[in-house]
């Protein structure tokens, strides 16, 4: 008992570990698809086309960042696309009331926060399973949009409101792309460099032990639902601005693409593991695939096969490989 051995801090440097990670594989895949695309279509490498392509994923990725944190903590929010619909409807309603762009932004963010808080209260205060709660609010939020709009649409957004979805910051860098970059950094720092992020991992790995370690589990989870709602509000502003109109069917089915993006990014659907760089790369990959198939005139619905297959195979392939290896 007297021999005190010193334990090294690490066996591998962070760099070594990163090189062997899921993110590296994603990066290779992204580069591969990029090269493939550039051979497949002469239009692909045009900077403006590439810039346009980013709209495929920027709005979804904004929500995916918050969703990644939520899934790492062991919860999920399937109502995000419905929050977009409700926030967009509320903004459309505000336009009819004669409000200007600043007020519209506040309305969009506010509705997102309120919806997130509603989910958060139901999950953390009443202890209900988030998957059922958000399947419920998924119907409820979009249902309210349908009650308000029916088969109508809101239009007539102010001219300056168009900047969020159609404006450019510099050359081919759209406002959305810039926002995507800023949010990626913010969420990356939040998850990987702060106490809050560490708490999220701890909760996702073992919520009981995390609570026993003095972490306020309910509060952290509530904040995550709030964040997810807020990001849905942000996405609602961008999407509404880009489309210039609101229908209750806006962003229908996005929750699946967002969850796919998060899972493809290496986040464990069971919670406890995942990184923001992974989600960023997954967003690029999904954008590139969609864009590439679009250039090849493949219809959107067929892309959904690719997305679905991607979702299953990114989880299945490593497991198949494990099975095959241990055989």
């Amino acid at each position, binding site marked *: 008992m007297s021999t005190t051995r010193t334990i090294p801090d690490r066996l591998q440097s962070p760099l070594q570990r990163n090189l062997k990670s899921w993110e590296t594989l994603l990066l290779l895949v992204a580069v591969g698809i990029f090269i493939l695309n550039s051979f497949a279509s002469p239009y692909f490498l045009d900077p403006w086309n590439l810039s346009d392509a980013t709209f495929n994923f920027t709005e979804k990725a904004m929500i995916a960042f918050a969703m990644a944190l939520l899934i790492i903590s062991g919860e*999920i929010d399937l109502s995000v696309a419905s929050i977009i619909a409700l926030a967009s409807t509320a903004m459309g309603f505000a336009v009819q009331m004669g409000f200007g762009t600043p007020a519209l932004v506040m309305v969009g963010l506010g509705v997102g926060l309120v919806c997130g808080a509603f989910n958060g209260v139901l999950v953390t205060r009443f202890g209900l399973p988030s998957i059922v709660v958000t399947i*419920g609010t998924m119907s409820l939020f979009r249902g309210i949009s349908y009650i308000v709009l029916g088969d109508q649409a809101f239009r007539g957004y102010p001219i300056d409101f168009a900047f969020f979805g159609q404006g450019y910051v510099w050359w081919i860098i759209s406002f959305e792309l810039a926002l995507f970059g800023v949010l990626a950094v913010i969420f990356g720092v939040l998850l990987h460099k702060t106490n809050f992020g560490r708490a999220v991992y701890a909760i996702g790995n073992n919520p009981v032990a995390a609570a026993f370690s003095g972490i306020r589990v309910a509060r952290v989870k509530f904040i995550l639902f709030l964040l997810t709602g807020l990001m849905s509000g942000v996405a609602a502003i961008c999407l509404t601005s880009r489309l210039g109109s609101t229908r209750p069917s806006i962003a229908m089915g996005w929750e699946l693409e967002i969850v796919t993006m998060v899972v493809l990014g290496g986040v464990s659907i069971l919670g406890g593991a995942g990184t923001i760089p992974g989600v960023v790369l997954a967003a690029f990959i999904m954008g590139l695939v969609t864009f590439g198939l679009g250039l090849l005139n493949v219809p959107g619905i067929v892309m*959904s*096969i690719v997305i*679905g297959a991607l979702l299953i195979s990114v989880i*299945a392939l490593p497991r198949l490989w494990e099975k095959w290896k241990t055989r």
Partner: protein
Amino acid sequence: MIRRAIASREMILLGAIVLLLGVIYTRFPGFVAPNNLIRVFNDTSPLILLAIGQMIVILTRCIDLSVAANLALTGMVVAMLNAAMPDLPIIAIVILAMGLGALLGMVNGVLVWKLQIPPIVVTLGTMTIFRGLIFVLSEGRWVNSHQMSAAFKAFPRSTVLGLPMLSWFAILAVILFTVIMSRTTLGRAVYAVGGNPHAATYTGLDVGRTQFWAFTISGALAGLTGYLWVSRYAVAYVDIAGGFELDVVAACVIGGISIAGGVGTVAGALLGALFLGVIKNALPVVNVSPFWQMAISGAAIIIAVAFNARANRTRGRIILKRAEHAT
């Protein structure tokens, strides 16, 4: 005993449905007329069929979000088959639909069983893949009424003992699965696997295999409903029953089937489906826009899950002598 405890919950739901009908009766007595109730039941039959399958899946701690897509794909396949081979007997079509549905369910089941991929991920993926496949198969075209044979379309409407075939299928499924769930080894296994998977393994039950069969049953019922759906509405296209999987999950949650697995009955699924069916059919009667339906079913899910959670709260261990009870 298990069924006794849950019976009370089902009685509450039954009471709620009767109350609902009573309220409607005060304003629109015609809604409660036997003929109309038969119509409502017939209209709810597809939901009942799918809810029973979903219930079995949920009992084993899984979820099947691909049921509606399975329904649509199977429906499209049999519709195209009928268009190409109008002379194929209906019985063959029914068997084929169930077989194909079961096969699609097995795909889910195998991925969950053999690769331990979380069911929500698997079925989110297969859901989009199945929808995409319909498009690929049909090249985006509809199969319309005039392409279907008369027998094909007439079958679900043909009446036996005053009830349409569609209703009979639902009734048959309710009876069959009540027996299976309470009186067969498979039924016991489903409850055991969902109630305590760890203990089930020790009892010699294969958790994964049981889940596989649950998905297969859910798929077979979805396939059957696929044929009944396209023949009843006399049309097949990519988006039929879009989003219907949420109604199915809603029916289960409202019916008291615990998303945590192991708790729920066929009667619960039936009543949950009927509750939604009555609301859906009553809305136009009481002059409420059908656009309210989505929000109402969302609210119903949230209320039901909150209610179930309250009823299911487990008591703590009781140590103090004065509070101890003799069993």
